[in-house]
């Protein structure tokens, strides 16, 4: 009887049912395989290398700003490599929040020549804002990060301002964070270790209150940090050279 039904009129219907069954089987196998399939986002690896100073002021507030004079280098960078030379204020080491300001070049921001940048990480997330201009290789510029609320020039505790040689380049507001925990000045490379020879940081200062006046005071302490192959040559608490790589 069955064989009879499969002939002529029954055949197309059976083929149709078989196709559906096959489709259901494939779907079930796919569902079964999902949990064993590593569908995590594959993060690109971005190794970071550093050479520089942390202020690490003991028993004292970090200050309402940081400044430092940075010599501009312009080394060849390989594919997928970035170079940043900057000063920074850290809001939280627990959550790695803070502001970084200086110059840099690299593929991520299409820097083929050095450009000023601001990098920000806080409760909103993190991101990097490049400027349209930058320093000339071989020149030195003084970078400032200031917190006007701290020295009573603003009523907004979330406002931070960024200057190069007294010209304001950026300002930003932070997310529920009102003060710095530490300050840093350093060279950073991402992805590879280009030659950073010639890097020179000097005049590292913190903005502090002294006898009811706000003034830039040279760092009176520091903690050196260097990652292979870079080397920091210490001159004083407020000046260093960085070399190596390539």
């Amino acid at each position: 009887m069955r064989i009879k039904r499969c002939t002529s009129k029954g055949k197309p219907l059976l083929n149709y049912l078989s196709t559906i069954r096959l489709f259901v089987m494939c779907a079930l196998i796919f569902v079964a395989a999902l949990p064993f399939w590593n569908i995590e986002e594959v993060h690109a690896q971005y190794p970071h290398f550093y050479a520089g100073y942390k202020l690490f002021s003991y028993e004292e507030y970090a200050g309402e700003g940081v400044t430092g004079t940075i010599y501009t280098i312009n080394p060849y960078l390989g594919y997928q490599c970035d170079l940043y030379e900057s000063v920074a204020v850290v809001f939280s080491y627990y959550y790695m929040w803070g502001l970084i300001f200086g110059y840099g070049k690299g593929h991520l921001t299409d820097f083929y020549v050095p450009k000023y940048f601001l990098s920000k990480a806080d409760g909103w997330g993190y991101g990097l804002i490049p400027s349209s201009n930058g320093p000339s290789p071989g020149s030195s510029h003084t970078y400032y990060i200031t917190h006007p609320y701290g020295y009573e020039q603003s009523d907004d505790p979330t406002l931070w301002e960024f200057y190069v040689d007294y010209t304001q380049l950026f300002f930003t507001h932070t997310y529920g964070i009102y003060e710095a925990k530490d300050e840093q000045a350093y060279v950073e490379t991402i992805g590879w270790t280009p030659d950073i020879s010639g890097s020179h940081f000097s005049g590292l200062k913190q903005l502090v209150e002294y006898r009811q006046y706000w003034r830039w005071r040279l760092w009176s302490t520091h903690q050196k940090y260097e990652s292979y192959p870079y080397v920091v040559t210490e001159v004083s608490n407020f000046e260093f050279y960085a070399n190596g790589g390539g």
Partner: protein
Amino acid sequence: MMRKRFLYLAIVLAALGVLSAAHNFSQPAGQAVERPTVFNAVDVRSLHWSGQHEGEALVIQSGNSPFATFMPPTFNRFSLAKGVDEAARRLGGRVPLLPTLLPKGLNYADVYVGPDVIICYTYEAAADYRLSEVGVEVSKAPSRVPTPEERRRCLQPDQELIQISDIWVTITDNAHSGWNRETIVCASFHYKDPSYIVGGKSPLTKQDIIRIIESMKTPL
């Protein structure tokens, strides 16, 4: 017949898959979904710590951010019993407030002393503070701290300003960690010079963090 066998095999595999997925997405033991967190009084003597030697140095690596990041901080790690004194020394003699109530199961406490002080609580021994469930970051406060009115003026839509005793706390359950963009509950406040950031990971809620802050006291 052959196709039926394949169908059974597929059904068994699907069932296994569903079970495995359910296991992967379930909460760790000791935590309940959509149930109030159970709190226990902190018994300092029964707390373990994650380190081997008091004061051991740890460099906390910066991770794999594609952007410029800070130089890795170096911290010295202590047990809670020893670390409170070290923290007070770092903070110019101020003994930090510590939670006296914690979610049940947080049996490990570590004190990290470095550029500032981070006190962490975890369910198990942790490699460093990034893996903690609850953390309290304490640092020296600036000379000018925001008034409640100034804090209120700069609140974002997902932030809230609340008063706990005589402390004004800015709190949100929608902040993002700079380490891995994980969404966290985060509160900040000033109390007698030190400034505090208190944070917690999911499934801890804003109410849980408020309860932890309410319980914070200076250890005797």
